[in-house]
């Protein structure tokens, strides 16, 4: 029997080498690469693992210590920063306060500096140098850089006996044990025989160009930041379990105790997540050059094709509109019932969706989530911005692109919900959130420091979507498209910042766009223009004294000539339109003035002052005035005051009344028992 296993292992190795690298040349700097052997014990939700890390110092500063994230310790007890901030709830999901806690313990860590001739490039972990005999045993201590909460164990520092010099590399080897929270909570965890394994291994933080580690604790309102690398992960699971993972499957081999080892290899990614369950039902398809694999739950099998269709849309739209998705595959996971906490999340080449049995096609939650999560493979994966500090670069840009794609596929007014009697468009949905609280925080700030969770959500998702939509109207669709494509092309596989985005926007716009982004990203200013006053007054002949009268005329009581009433068509009017900037965000705006002879006049206003008056003298009265008549500024927080009519406008009142009267009639009929 052992001989048999040996043969299997040998063939697995041959197969592994036959697979070769995914990319001929590295797409990313490959700073932090991992090899992990992990053994899942389903009954205890326990992961026992050994780990090797190859880390390169690409800065100009020596690294005297290393810092790591131990994300699963956020669920160790109710004293962690995450649990204190969340009160044990995340997106409506709760951890089982009795038996559901999770943890990660780093048992052992050793390392050695690599010599100059050992620096690679390493296509796969099998080419890595051996640890050798000169290893250091490394100790670690917990740190709390954000809030000094000594009970928080989600970040550690590892002092090094010798610094890693600029350009140098260090090889680390260690072992750890982790327990997954239950039910899945804050993107990771286990429910019965379903395991979604995310943020599960000791993950080295990012050493920034200034030689400082960027290593934040795990917060309720925050996501992640990491360096690119390669991953070789060997997952040992029960033999009947199906595995879905970041990267490509290289081999499946048997263990002596009848389980299976799944080896996945990934290149140029900055995170690695996987899932396993015996209940997955697989669907597969192809979108352009990307192989799509969907792992559905048994009770959602009827929606497998729907998931596949949404994933195809996502891949095709993003590739057509924003640039190449260089990876050969995408895996979509449908979380198990009772495991919604692992839904709606993105990892490189792996995303999780979320549905419910019987979900109508008109409620496009599946499509929305899949398109959104795949979008992260551009804005978080290809462009690894710092989600701790500039969430809008990922979630915000992604919300904007998600809305654009959803609107293009399903129509602007019904892209999210299209059921009889109720239609909601994606951008309208974002705008309603934006309006509900856009002025509590600037868009850019550390994710955990927003006023509250709602403000984090608005400033990370909806507000940036509305900002970019406004920018698109300002620049025009072509320039906006070029801006997005340039951003992807220029900054793929780097850590772009807001400044990078603004620089490209300025370059494409042909003007310094700082005036716009400074207000939109770094202040809580809002746009609110209104038409405050319109009036037309007939211009009559001048009355009173004029210079033709003499003192004698006055003394002799000479009567002034009476003014003759002009015919209607000869009457002249002096019209006045006053426009106000009620918000403190300055943005150029157009004003449309309509006269009763049908003439329409367009005016421009730079919005620098807090009000502006327009005067007209003509044989027509003004009937209405509208600021932003083409609705180019979705950032305007109040659209009701954007126009003013001379006579009362019945249409909105009538239509709203019709709608409400209709509902109230039925309600009262029901209440009359």
């Amino acid at each position: 029997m052992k001989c048999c296993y040996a043969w299997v292992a040998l063939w697995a190795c041959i197969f592994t080498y036959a697979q070769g690298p995914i990319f001929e040349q590295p797409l990313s700097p490959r700073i932090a690469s991992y090899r992990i052997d992990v053994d899942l014990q389903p009954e205890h939700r326990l992961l026992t693992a050994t780990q090797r890390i190859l880390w390169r110092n690409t800065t100009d500063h020596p690294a005297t210590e290393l810092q790591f994230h131990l994300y699963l310790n956020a669920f160790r007890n109710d004293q962690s920063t995450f649990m204190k901030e969340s009160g044990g709830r995340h997106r409506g999901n709760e951890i089982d306060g009795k038996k559901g806690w999770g943890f990660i313990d780093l048992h052992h860590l050793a390392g050695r500096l690599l010599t100059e001739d050992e620096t690679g490039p390493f296509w796969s972990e099998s080419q890595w140098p051996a640890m050798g005999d000169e290893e250091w045993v490394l100790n670690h201590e917990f740190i709390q850089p954000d809030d000094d909460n000594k009970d928080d164990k989600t970040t550690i520092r590892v002092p090094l006996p010798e610094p890693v010099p600029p350009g140098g590399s260090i090889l680390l080897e260690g072992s750890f044990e982790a327990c997954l929270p239950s039910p899945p909570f804050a993107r990771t965890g286990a429910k019965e025989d379903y395991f979604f394994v995310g943020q599960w291994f000791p993950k080295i933080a990012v050493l920034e160009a200034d030689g400082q580690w960027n290593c934040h604790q795990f917060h309720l309102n925050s996501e992640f930041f990491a360096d690119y690398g390669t991953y070789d992960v060997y997952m040992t699971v029960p033999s009947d379990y199906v595995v879905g993972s970041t990267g490509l499957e290289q081999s499946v081999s048997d263990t002596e105790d009848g389980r299976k080892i799944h080896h996945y290899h990934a290149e140029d990614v900055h995170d690695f997540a996987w899932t396993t369950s015996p209940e997955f039902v697989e669907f597969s398809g192809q979108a352009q050059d990307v192989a799509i694999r969907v792992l559905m739950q048994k009770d959602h099998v009827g929606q497998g094709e729907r998931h596949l269709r949404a994933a195809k849309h996502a891949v095709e739209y993003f590739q057509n509109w924003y640039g190449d998705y260089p990876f050969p595959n995408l895996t979509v996971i449908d979380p198990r019932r009772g495991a919604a906490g692992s839904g709606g999340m993105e990892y490189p080449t792996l995303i999780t969706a979320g549905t419910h049995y019987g979900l109508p096609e008109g409620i496009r939650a599946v499509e929305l989530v899949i398109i959104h999560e795949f979008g992260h493979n551009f804005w978080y994966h290809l462009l690894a911005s710092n989600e701790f500090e500039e969430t809008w670069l990922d979630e915000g840009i992604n919300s904007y692109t998600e809305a654009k794609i959803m609107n293009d596929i399903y129509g602007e007014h019904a892209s999210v919900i299209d059921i009889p009697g109720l239609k909601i468009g994606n951008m309208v949905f974002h705008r309603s959130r934006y309006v509900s609280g856009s002025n509590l925080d600037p868009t850019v700030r550390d994710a955990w420091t927003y006023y509250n969770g709602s403000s984090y959500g608005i400033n990370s998702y909806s507000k940036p979507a509305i900002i970019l939509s406004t920018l698109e109207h300002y620049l025009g669709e072509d320039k906006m498209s070029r801006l997005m494509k340039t951003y992807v092309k220029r900054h793929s596989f780097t850590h772009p910042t807001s400044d990078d985005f603004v620089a490209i926007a300025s370059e494409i716009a042909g003007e310094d766009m700082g005036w716009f982004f400074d207000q939109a990203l770094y202040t809580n200013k809002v746009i609110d223009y209104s038409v405050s006053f319109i009036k037309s007054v007939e211009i009559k002949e001048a009355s009173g004294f004029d210079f033709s009268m003499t003192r004698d005329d006055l003394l002799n009581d000479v009567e002034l000539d009476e003014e003759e009433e002009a015919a209607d068509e000869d009457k002249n009017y002096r019209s006045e339109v006053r426009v106000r900037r009620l918000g403190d965000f300055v943005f150029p705006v157009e004003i449309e003035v309509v006269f009763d002879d049908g003439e329409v006049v367009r005016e421009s206003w730079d919005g620098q002052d807090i009000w502006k008056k327009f005067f007209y003298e003509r044989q027509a009265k003004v009937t209405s005035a509208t600021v932003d008549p083409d609705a180019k500024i979705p950032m305007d927080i109040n659209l009701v005051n954007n126009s003013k009519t001379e006579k009362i406008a019945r249409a909105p009142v009538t239509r709203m009344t019709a709608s409400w009267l209709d509902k109230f009639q039925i309600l009262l009929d029901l209440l009359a028992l």
Partner: protein
Amino acid sequence: MIKAFRLGWKGAGRYPVLVGIWFTTNILFAWIATAPFRRVFASHAGHSLIGDQPLGLMSFNYVSDLMVTEKVAWTSAQAGFSMVVLLWILLSVFMAAATLGTLESGRPFSWVRFAGNGGRYFFSFLGLFLVMAVVLVLMLLVVPLFAWLQTLILGEDPYQNIVVWMNVFKWTLAFLLTWYWKRIFDYARIDLVLTKKSSFRISLKRALVFSVRNFRSAFGLGLCFLGVSLVVFTIYTWIKIGANVSSTMLAVVVILVGILYTAIRNWIRVAQWSGELALYYGLQPNIREEAFVESEIETNVDEIFESTLPGIDQFQVVAAEAVPAVAVPADDDEVDPETNIPLQSNSGVDQVASDDDDLGTNKPEV
């Protein structure tokens, strides 16, 4: 049951003014209830062109903008609406009493009698209404009860498809229970009117017994009217959604269709009460005597009957061995000999008797 259904419509046809009263008050109160919102709309959007946007987009933007910028006005409008709804509930209790009293009398409609009946039964009806409301809420406990049973049978972790269908079953059952409770409530009110306000507790008890003993007929009759209501509602919804209020003209169409729907709904309401009255009395023609024996009220029963139930005198109750006892009218024309006005629906209870019904079961021969 089918004939009671037919008689119900006939009864509503004889009292179009009742339908008119319900319809008018329903529309009027809906209009009043929208007034606070209309006022907010008018004062904040009356001079805005926002209505030129498609309603789907506009209403979403408009309402969210309005709720954020005009919180106080919005809250006031909601408070005003709540007051109107409360008033409507009280008025509907009064009107239900007046309507059933009128239907039961069989006499031509008169405003004085209508108002008199409303006043006479108002507090009894209100008592019944409160009891009904409490029981209605208690009945919703069937849902958590079924959820508990569901967990007991299927465990903590059933597949979602099973859960969904269990939920459909659970809510259907809860709906049917509450809906049938509403029918019992109707019969209790009918009993109250028939027995001249003996006691709402006793009437409720008798209605319960009736609804259990004559479950098939009572349930079936209710189902017939429910079916009609659902068909009307489906057609109305279909038209409304089709119109989509995308222009002011279509908004007017929606208002008109809504008004027509309300008229039909109130017609159905009066017809249903009339049909239920016919069924209740048809299956228990001697309910009054039983009621007075039960409540031991020493009153001249004949006097009361004479004064308030002229139509009833014209029935003769027949019975034969193994044949249900039924009430039949004295003449086929069903016309009040004094006024020459067609009699109320329950005067045609002979038509209620059929092989499908349990008419006259255990009824004493009069």
